[in-house]
């Protein structure tokens, strides 16, 4: 009896999570896959006809938006790492007693709705807004110069909105660096730069890894920023999927696009993990 219970315990422990995954992940994913191979319309219904052409049709029409989403996601992630690393480093090593206050400040914008935060950028970047109006009156930029509805605006918006997703894992990784290791490094005559490149940075790599994933995946599939800050040539794949699913109600196309996006991102993450030399992707992400 005792042994049986011990044997069953792990299953009971995983039961709530397992059920959650089954209901809210496996079933929707299977439904999505099956929808992507259906033909039909709202009035007559949809039938599973194994219509693989949905994929080729969707991709041949919307490949530029796919590519663009990956580019924007990558740009926002690189910019995000460049901005976050100093922030996380400073909080972890120089934050002192106020570390949690600083982290709270990083998270503070999250208390404002995502869409509102993005709309305030729209105000800020507008042609005659806070940023451009003075520059124009000083003659530093030409009168018809604009940032809204350009790639720059969208990438800035993405970087801003997802910044805390990089700062936090970076902070956790840097915070864990044992000060004695740093000390040892300088005892062994490493300069500040060598200490950073040879000791601190390699130790923070799991944080960089997690930050990149947590930033790149949502940024590449985001549509709010492109919708609010972008123009006709900045549409990202998220907008297309939303339009196809909710406006046109062409479920097969919408689900085919979603499947490609999900598959593409998954493959990308595993390749990235390989390249980074992380022995186990899931383990690194769990850190």
């Amino acid at each position, binding site marked *: 009896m005792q042994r049986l219970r011990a044997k069953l315990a792990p299953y009971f422990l995983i039961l709530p999570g397992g059920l959650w995954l089954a209901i809210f992940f*496996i*079933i929707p994913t299977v439904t999505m896959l099956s929808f992507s191979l259906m033909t*039909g*319309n*709202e*009035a007559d219904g949809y039938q599973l006809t194994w219509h693989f052409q949905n994929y080729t049709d969707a991709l041949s029409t919307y490949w530029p938006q796919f590519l663009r989403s990956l580019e924007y996601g990558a740009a926002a992630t690189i910019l995000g790492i460049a901005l976050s690393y100093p922030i996380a480093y400073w909080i972890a090593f120089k934050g002192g007693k106020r570390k949690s206050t600083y982290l709270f400040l990083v998270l503070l914008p999250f208390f404002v709705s995502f869409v509102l935060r993005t709309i305030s950028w729209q105000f800020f970047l507008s*042609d005659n807004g806070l940023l451009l109006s003075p520059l124009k009156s000083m003659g530093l930029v030409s009168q018809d110069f604009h940032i809204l509805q350009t790639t720059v605006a969208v990438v800035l918006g993405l970087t801003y909105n997802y910044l805390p997703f990089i700062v936090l894992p970076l902070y956790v990784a840097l915070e864990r660096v044992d000060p004695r290791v740093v000390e040892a490094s300088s005892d062994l005559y490493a300069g500040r730069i060598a200490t950073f490149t040879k000791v601190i940075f390699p130790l923070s790599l799991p944080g960089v890894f997690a930050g990149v994933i947590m930033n790149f995946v949502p940024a590449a599939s985001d549509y709010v920023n492109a919708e609010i800050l972008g123009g*006709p040539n900045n549409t990202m794949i998220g907008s297309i999927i939303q339009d196809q699913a909710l406006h*046109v*109600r062409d479920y097969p196309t919408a689900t085919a696009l979603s499947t490609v996006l999900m598959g593409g991102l998954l493959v990308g993450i595993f390749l990235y993990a390989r390249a980074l030399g992380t022995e186990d992707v899931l383990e690194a992400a769990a850190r």
Partner: protein
Amino acid sequence: MNEFDPAFLRGITQDRRSFLRAAGLVGAGAALAACGVKGAKVSPAKADDVAKFWAGKKQNGHVDFANWASYMDANHSPLKKFTSETGITVNYKEVITDDPTWYGKIQPQLAAGQPIGYDLMVVTDGIELNKLVQFGYLAPLDHKMLTNFEANAGAAFKNESFDKGNVFSVPYATGYTGIGYNPKYVKEPITSIKQLFDPKYKGKIGMMKDTQELGNFGMLLNGVNPETSTEADWKKAAATLQAQKPIVRQYVDQNYTKSLSNGDLWITMAWSGDIFQENLSNGSNLQFVVPSEGGTIWTDNMMIPKTAPNPVDALKLIDFFYRIDIAAMLTEEINYVPSVPAVKAQLLKDAQTASKSDAATFTTMASSPLVFPTDAELANLRHYVNLPNPGAEKIYQDLFLPISSG
């Protein structure tokens, strides 16, 4: 996080039985999805539908009303008056931003036969209204209870092509799609759709994101009446609009008036009442014209979802909007075309008792072609493109959606 005994994880994931169980689950999901999804089409309305629907329905003293943004004054005065006269309370929410999104939100509940949380809603004529009718999602209106509508509605609003005989809907307000521009930046008179294609305004041009609106303007420029257009016309219009794309700043939805007054946009497709409202509320001097090639006319319609818990109260509110004084009250605020012609006389009458500035506004409104179009102006307005079946709709959307969301 990873302080688990690795053997623990292995025990769970590498157990053959649980693998089989997971596989079974995936299979069940597949079976579930493989059945396909049933179509929503229903048989056409029958003569006794009205009596059948309204039999046994009683007034409950409350109505939930879903409408578009800024489609009533901030105090909701017509609704306050309704409550004080009938005792029926109104929960008014401006939750509709565009027809496709709204339809997407309510469709699952309607298909499942559940209430959507609103007894009364306002939907524009077009693809979504057709679907609501076609799929049997709307309550047939009992015209015996619509006495004000029968007495006061203008002939043109009583028998519109999209809902002949007002079986399911009556108009809330009507407006046009034309061109709005800011004369602070645009220094020439605007008369033609061609000017939306002028490279001079590169990077300052707005076109509408809505595929029906967008396609209509492409066709009008090509000299085609959207209402009677064919697939060949759509293809030509799509090519015309695709060529314009490099000079378009943005494909706009609801917020274009703000962009127009702050100079992000100089010239854009626009709805008549929006421009009037923006000028009234912000003191801007934006202009609206119906282009010489023609503009489009659309009607926003009040309707009751079949699953509404308070249909009698909703119907009473619908009819209330057709009382001449209430129709005038609404027009004074939203500046769209009223469905009650007597509003014009009422506006002039209200002007005599109103404050000085209001009086001037009302008099301007009574003579404004945007609110009371002349017959000549009406003749230059076209109805929306007609998409009779899902096949045509798919072709149409695949042509225009890649333009507005490229």
